[in-house]
């Protein structure tokens, strides 16, 4: 009984770490930059594929490529916001209108990134999970593969670093100010346009790094992104749209829920996710940490 419980709980935590890192990035993009980025999963896919390419062609250690993937995806996200979303925001009559049109634009982006990836890498399934960190670790009788534990560790470390960055640095303060009230933030000297672009870039960076960690555990393909977008969406609604801490907690909750449901009835886990999601939207759309 205890062993089953531990099995399910730790498996949930392992999944939850990945969910959390994906959702924190997603939440940052929506909470501050006001873009509900439906192509978030595509940035995850990009991160996974860059890591795969570096590993199979150049032999770069996947954990080292975190340092390469992060900045590359950050720059893509930053530039994208600067040249596309920022002018769109400026020409939108209201925040609501901008949210609507940017949401639809990211659907376009989803198809662009996905199909460019198919053209570059091909549509078939790839992966190196069977060639790297294949040993396993025994925790109180429950056996877990090392790669999962390593990726959980890195996910938590990345989120912690990010949290400290938000709490302690000047730029972090500017981001929080812009999230609370753009107009006032601009009045006290925050370059809001730049801060929003940085937020979008940081969100993309988290997605890319999440993609690297995912590629440690699972096989990858260009159409893999969407399922992670959906998970990020659910976690963020669970934790409260725009709340970083909420996304972190929501990620682990969803991980554990998913693990429990799949233990009981594997085919139902996605149905359960959507069910929770829709129920939450109806009962408490602001989520557990929302105001």
């Amino acid at each position, binding site marked *: 009984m205890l062993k089953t419980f531990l099995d399910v709980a730790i498996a949930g935590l392992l999944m939850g770490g990945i969910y959390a890192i994906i959702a924190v990035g997603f939440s940052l993009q929506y909470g501050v930059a006001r873009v509900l980025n439906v192509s978030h999963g595509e940035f995850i896919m990009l991160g996974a594929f860059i890591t795969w390419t570096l590993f199979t062609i150049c032999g770069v250690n996947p954990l080292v490529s975190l340092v390469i993937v992060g900045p590359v995806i950050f720059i893509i996200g930053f530039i994208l916001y600067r040249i596309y979303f920022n002018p*769109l925001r400026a020409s939108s009559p209201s925040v609501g209108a901008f949210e*609507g049109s940017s949401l*639809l634009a990211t659907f*376009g982006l989803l198809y*662009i990134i996905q199909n460019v990836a198919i053209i570059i890498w091909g549509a078939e399934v790839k992966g190196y999970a069977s060639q790297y960190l294949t040993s396993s670790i025994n925790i109180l009788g429950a056996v877990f593969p090392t790669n999962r534990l390593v990726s959980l560790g890195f996910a938590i470390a990345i989120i912690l670093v990010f949290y400290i960055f938000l709490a302690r640095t000047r730029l972090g303060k500017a981001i929080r100010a812009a999230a609370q009230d753009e107009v006032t933030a601009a009045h006290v000297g925050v370059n809001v346009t730049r801060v929003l672009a940085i937020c979008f870039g940081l969100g993309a960076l988290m997605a890319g790094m999440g993609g690297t960690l995912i590629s440690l555990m699972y096989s990858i393909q260009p159409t893999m992104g969407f399922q992670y977008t959906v998970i990020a969406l659910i976690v963020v609604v669970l934790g409260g749209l725009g709340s970083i801490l909420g996304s972190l907690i929501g990620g682990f909750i969803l991980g554990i829920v998913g693990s429990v449901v799949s233990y009981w009835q594997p085919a139902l886990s996605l149905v359960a996710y*959507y069910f929770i999601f*829709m129920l939450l939207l*109806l009962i408490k759309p602001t989520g557990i940490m929302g105001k």
Partner: protein
Amino acid sequence: MSPKNYLILGISLVILIILAILPLYAQPYNIVLLTTIFMYVVLTVSWVIFSGPTRYISLAPAAFFGVGIYVAALLGRELPLLAFVAVGGLCSFVLALLVGFLTLRLRDTYFTIFTFGLVELIRHFLLFWETNITGTRGRIVVLIDNDVVFYVMLGIFVVTLLVAYLIRRSKFGLALRSIGENEVAAVHRGINVTMVKALTFAISAFFMGATGAIMATKWTYIDPYVAFNPLFSFLPVLMAIFGGMSQLYSPIIGAVIFTYLEEVLTTRLPYYYMLIFGLVLVVAIKYLPDGLVGLVPRLIRRWRKKFPAEPQAST
């Protein structure tokens, strides 16, 4: 009625008659293509019926379309053609009414993600149901002659346009527009916002469901992935944005151009089609706020500014 209205009515009737006698002369391929165009036009116009004036972005068309498809698969052999098409529409109508009343409190983005989640929830639930309870994945749909499908689709197309036209002109349409402009003010004017929104949403869903039911007969085999493909939610939105939503005919233009593009590209360059689909969406949102139809007056205005007309000789 003014002479201009008579002219429009006359032209519409002539087009309708030409379309109606087309199957006697045209190639079967063209009939199939036209049927697909009608399908997208109906999906797009019915999407605009609700989302155009109210500005609530619904990503639920795939859900209503899929419900119609499943009705056809389940009842296609039990009921006559028109009956199961109507049942398909009615099931979607009821579902939309339910969703409409449930989601009334949700604003903007929340409504959009809810409708999006709806499609995925239904799809995954059906997948679970089919693999674990019934043990069969997918269904065979009754096969119907291409020309018959064409005529039914033409009928739905005409009715959809008529309803869209009547709603636009009625007090009901005015109420819808005022909800889009300012919902709080609409409530204060005594509009039953709840009722108007839910009912319009349901009417638009009826046409999507009926379309799904008749189009399902062309696919012969369906499963949850085919029926509840989220692309059927995005394509109508894209076509509406691309064509514009200001006039009744503007979404039709968007739908026709895009269906043709899909027809030409999907078979030859499937990945490039999706790539172009994405690019057009991204570009249209930024540069065509009023759609293709809105572009023409804008270009004329710009052209006039650049080359001011010669001063008129009149007083």
